[in-house]
Each structure stands twice: as C-alpha cells, then as structure tokens.
C-alpha cells in the first residue's frame, strides 16, 4: 500500500495530458477548423475508457488497489462510475457542439474546462483521503463556475455564476471545517485509517459528531438537496444550456462517489448518526423538489427541481447503510445522469438560432413537428416520472426496496406519494407535446451525430429498463451485495 503505483492512475494522467494538449492545439486552429477540437475531445474519452477497461489490478480476488500512498483508490465502483462519466460526457459533447455552433460560442474553452472538470470527477471518484476529496471537489467546482459564466454577455449567466461561486465556496468551507474536525479527532487523513481510528475513539465522540455534521452539510450543498438547494434552480436557469447539461449530469456521479467514500469508507461506524441526517435531507428534497417543480413554467427550472427530488432518492439509497442500498443509489445516480443528459439534450435540440427553448410552451405540439423527437422526450419524461418498463422505474424501485428492507416504511411511503405528485409535471410535458397545437411550424433540424446521440440516449431510457438487470448486477457487485 505504501508504493507510488502511478500506472494505476493512468486514466487520470491521460485525461490531464489530453486536456493540456487540446489547450495548446486550439491556439493553432482557426474558427473554421474548431471541429478538430471536438474530435480530439471525443478521442480522449474513448481512449480513457479503453485505458480504464484494460487495467488489471485485481489481486487475490479483491478488486481494489491503492496508489500514491493510499490517497488514490481503484475499485469496481470507481471504474463503473468513470466509464459512465466518459459515456455521458461524450453525449454531452455531441449535444454541445451543435448548441455552441448555434449560439456562436464554439470556443475550445468549453472543452478544456469540462475535461478538467472530468479530471476532478475522476479524482474525486478515486479519492481515498480527505485531501484528495477536497481537491477533486475544488477542481470540479472551479471549472463549473467558469462554465456557468461561459456566455460572457449574459447577465443571467454572470449572476448565476456569482451565486454558484459564493455558495459553492461556503460549502467547501463547511466541508473543510468538518474535515479538520475529523482530522483532529482521528489524527489521519487516509479514509481507511479514519475508519480504524473512529472504531478506537468511539463513534460517540462529540468532536467526530460535530465534524460529521459539517461534512454532511458540505455534501448536501454539493448534491443540492433541501435545505441546501437554493443555488440549483438559479444556476440551472441562468447558465447556458450546454453548461446546465454538463453540471447536471457528470458531477452528480462524483458527488455520489464522494458520499460513499466519506460515509461508507471513512465514517461507517457512525452510520446511525449520518443515516438520521440523510433521511431528513432525503425526505425534504423529495417533497420540496416535486412540489416546487409543479409551479415552474421554465423547463430548465423544472428540471432543476426535479434534480433536487432525484438527489433525495439517491440519498434514500445511501441512508440504510446496506450494500443493497449503496448499489441502488449508484444505479439511481447513473440512470439520473443519463436521463438528465437526454432531457437537456432535447432543450438544445429545440433551441434555434441562438434562442434557448427554455419555456415549457416551446414543447407544445412537438408531436406534429417531429414525432420521433416527441417520442424521445416522452420516454425521458416517463422514465423520470418512474413509469414501469422505463429505466427510471427500476431505479426508484431499487431505492425504495432498499429503504423497505432497512425497515424505513415511513420513508418509502413518502417517496411513493411524492413520486406520484411528481408524475404530474412530467406528464404535463407529454400532454403539451401530444395534445396541444404547436406555436411554430419551424423545421427541427440537427446534424447527424446529434440525431444519433439523442436517439441512442432516448432508446437507453427503455432499453436499459428492459435489460436493467445487468447494470443493476454490476452496481450491486461493486458493493459486494
């Protein structure tokens, strides 16, 4: 464990090098040849996935390996989450190219910043010490702040970026404060050693509990769950839709991994404490997210509130502290990222000539304009609402089952009731698309790679639903369930 086994971190090194290469290559490219940047970015993701898949580190049947003196960990959960990050980021790039071209913002900064954010995501997923968790998180956050302000002439965008920056910095401060308390009580930053120290100090040590509260607050800020959710709707609405697409999908998986590393690896003996805190956060998020989304007329804002409720479900998977629950949470967060990417992809598709289609009314009569796109959006909405057969249903089902197995009947009941409430606003979009007259007859056209990506993304909603058992099995196996 005390070796600097650098080759384990090959995917991270590759992504970092390629982000720098893209940064430099862009200097020599004119406006008309920017497409090369896009190709390079996609290539980076493909090779990152290959490098991740080729890693052979399983020893004695334990798929777990450490590098950099234990501050970096490779395990199945990390690898699966990373592979899905690459897939989703590739989808995001395909959507983004079309959108950035339309909005005349096709600059390489989007690619470099989001690749650095991906590096942060990967490092956070693989973090095994408190320092690495903080640094990975900051790398994601800093890149995201800049991406939110990416449209420099948009007042809403700048406002959203400032809000995001101030609240995000405060959350980082809270997290650091909590970490310093944990460090003070255990005397180590390595998460494995923290767990041992907690066992010997005793999990009822007030200093540990105090630190845990701050850790959970920081975590809740980053996940965006009630009552630390204020920034989500404003940032999602104010940011350019490409950025919203990005920050609502890939970093969520990192936030989930962070919760697992901190709570399951580090503070597993304090499960009784954090389980209570998470259950309050989960219940409030599910209630508020679903109720507030009903009142929205802006689809970006609506999806933002829906994110809040989805994150509540993810927490619900975490809080029983069982392997089944962790696996369910992981499955949920992957599925959510795919759904969110498809949802915002549709918003991009309908945005024409530099005007974002962010009103719900823009979806009116979509079926008459193009029935295939309407079908994709309908599949996404059904999946988010948790209608059976679609993948969102299985995600919700697994999470609720995990809660029931842990004897949290009341939590399961609340979750089910508010999923039904939530179904209202998802189905309203379907109703707008199929039963209302379109406001415009304008043709919807997109390049072929965009159409392929959104079709694939939409088909995943039902395909992953029908063949959900294999992905669920992978998620469960990550936690040995």
């Amino acid at each position, binding site marked *: 464990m005390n070796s*600097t086994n650098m080759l384990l971190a090959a995917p991270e090194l590759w992504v970092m090098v390629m982000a720098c290469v893209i940064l430099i290559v862009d200097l020599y490219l004119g406006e008309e040849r920017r497409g090369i940047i896009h190709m390079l970015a996609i290539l980076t993701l493909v090779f990152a996935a290959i490098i991740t898949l080729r890693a052979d580190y399983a020893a004695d049947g334990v798929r777990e390996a450490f590098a950099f003196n234990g501050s970096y960990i490779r395990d199945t959960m990390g690898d699966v989450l990373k592979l899905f990050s690459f897939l989703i980021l590739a989808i995001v790039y395909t959507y983004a190219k079309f959108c950035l071209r339309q909005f005349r913002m096709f600059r390489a900064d989007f690619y470099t910043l989001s690749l650095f954010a991906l590096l942060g995501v990967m490092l956070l997923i693989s973090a095994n010490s408190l320092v*690495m968790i903080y640094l990975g998180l900051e790398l994601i956050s*800093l890149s995201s702040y800049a991406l939110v302000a*990416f449209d420099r002439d948009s007042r809403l965008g700048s406002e959203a970026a400032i809000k995001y920056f101030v609240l995000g910095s405060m959350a980082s401060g809270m997290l650091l404060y909590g970490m310093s308390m944990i460090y003070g009580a255990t005397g180590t930053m390595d998460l494995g050693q923290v767990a041992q120290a907690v066992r010997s100090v005793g999990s009822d040590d007030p200093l540990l509990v105090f630190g845990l509260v701050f850790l959970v607050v920081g975590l809740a800020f980053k996940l965006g769950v009630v009552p630390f959710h204020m920034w989500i709707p404003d940032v999602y609405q104010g940011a350019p839709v490409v950025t919203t697409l990005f920050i609502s999908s890939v970093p969520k998986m990192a936030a989930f991994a962070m919760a697992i590393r901190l709570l399951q690896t580090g503070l597993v003996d304090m499960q009784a404490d954090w389980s209570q805190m998470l259950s309050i956060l989960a219940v409030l998020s599910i209630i508020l997210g679903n109720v507030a989304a009903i009142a929205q007329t802006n689809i970006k804002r609506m999806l933002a509130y829906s994110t809040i409720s989805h994150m509540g479900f993810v927490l619900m998977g975490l809080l029983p502290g069982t392997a089944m629950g962790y696996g369910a949470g992981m499955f949920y967060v992957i599925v959510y990222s795919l759904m969110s990417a498809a949802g915002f992809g549709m918003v991009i598709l309908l945005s024409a000539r530099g005007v974002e289609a962010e009103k719900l009314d823009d979806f009116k009569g979509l079926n008459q304009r193009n029935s295939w796109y309407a079908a994709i959006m309908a599949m996404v909405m059904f999946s988010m609402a948790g209608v059976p057969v679609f993948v969102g249903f299985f995600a919700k089902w697994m999470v609720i089952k995990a809660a029931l197995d842990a004897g949290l009947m009341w939590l399961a009941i609340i979750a089910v009731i508010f999923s039904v409430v939530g179904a209202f606003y998802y189905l309203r979009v379907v109703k707008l698309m199929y039963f209302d007259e379109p406001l415009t007859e304008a043709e919807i056209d997109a390049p072929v790679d965009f159409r392929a990506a959104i079709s694939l993304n939409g088909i995943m909603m039902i395909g992953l639903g029908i063949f959900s058992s294999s992905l669920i099995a992978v998620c469960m196996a990550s936690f040995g369930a």
Partner: protein
Amino acid sequence: MPIYEIVFYAFSLVMLAGAVGVITVRNPVYAALCLVLTFFSASAIWMLLEAEFLAIILIVVYVGAVMVLFLFVVMMLDINVAPLKEGFIRYLPVGILVAALMAAELLVLIWSKGRFEAGAYPLPAPNPEEYSNTKAVGEWLFTNYLLAFEVAGVILLVAIIAAVALTLRHRAGGHRQNPSHQVRVERDERVRLVKMKPEPRQGS
C-alpha cells in the same frame, strides 16, 4: 508563565482583533490592512510551532503578493460601501442566531471530555538543531502528498484558463500589434514608388 505562552496569547489576541477588524471596519482599505495584520500574527504563531517554512510562505505569498494585489484592486475600484450594507439589519437576527448556535456548539465541544484541557496534549519534543522544516515539508510534498500537490497545480492551471476565458476579449476596433505580421512586412506595403514626369526647375 513561560515566555512561549506570553507570545502565544499576545499574538492570538492581536490576530483575533485583526480578524474582527476585517469584518467591522467600514473602509475596505483598512479591512485589507487588518487582514494583513491577521496574517502576520498567524505567521508568528506558526513560528512558535517551529513551522518556519509555513510562516515565511504566509508572509511572502499572502501578505507580499495576494494582499498587495488585493489592495491595488480595492484602491482602483471606487467601491461605494453604502449599498453593500443594505439589508444588514434585516439579516442580522438570522446571522446572530446562526453564529450563536455555532459558538455554543464549539464551546460544548471544547468543554466536553477534557479534550482541550491544559495538559491534555503534552508539549512536543523540540526538534534537533540541524532539523530543517523546509526540507521536511518538501519531502512530504513530493512523496506522500505527491498526487495532492500535482492536483493543486492543476487547479491553479484551471484558474488561469478560467480567468482568461472569462475576460479576454478581442475588440473589433482594438489596436493590437501582431509581431509576426510586423516581421513579415514586405517592401511594397511600406514604400510606394511613383513614376512621374521630371519637372523643370523653377526660376532657372
């Protein structure tokens, strides 16, 4: 009272006073100077802990570079302080409530279980004479914390990229020099030879 305690309490008090000053002083320039004072006292306390490297870095980087830059910005921007104070009274009760809660929790922590009682932590043994704090920090940074150190570097790189991406603008009417263009200049672009008829000298 041993001398190190006197030094510790003196600098701690100055540091607290400086920190309070940062958030209460009206003039932003004074606030920045109060922050400098806070940093100085913190670095003195670090010195007391035999962490010379950190103490000097704090002064060189924070006081020398960051705060001076900060002062420049504060002085160059004509900040009107009055609107910043708006809503101060309105949000004061909530702020006080949160602050009081946090303070109460901290006090409970400090008094519980004797963790922070005098003598709970014995004085560490003084380092040998040839011990170099700087060397020790360097060794740890490049062995145990190598990954963290490198990632911190990446974060700084991202900060640079973000700053450039958000502020660099090519204005249409800007007068920018393009050195490579200047070097590649052709004779024809600068000198124009005009053929004209020879004119007879006047007045001869």
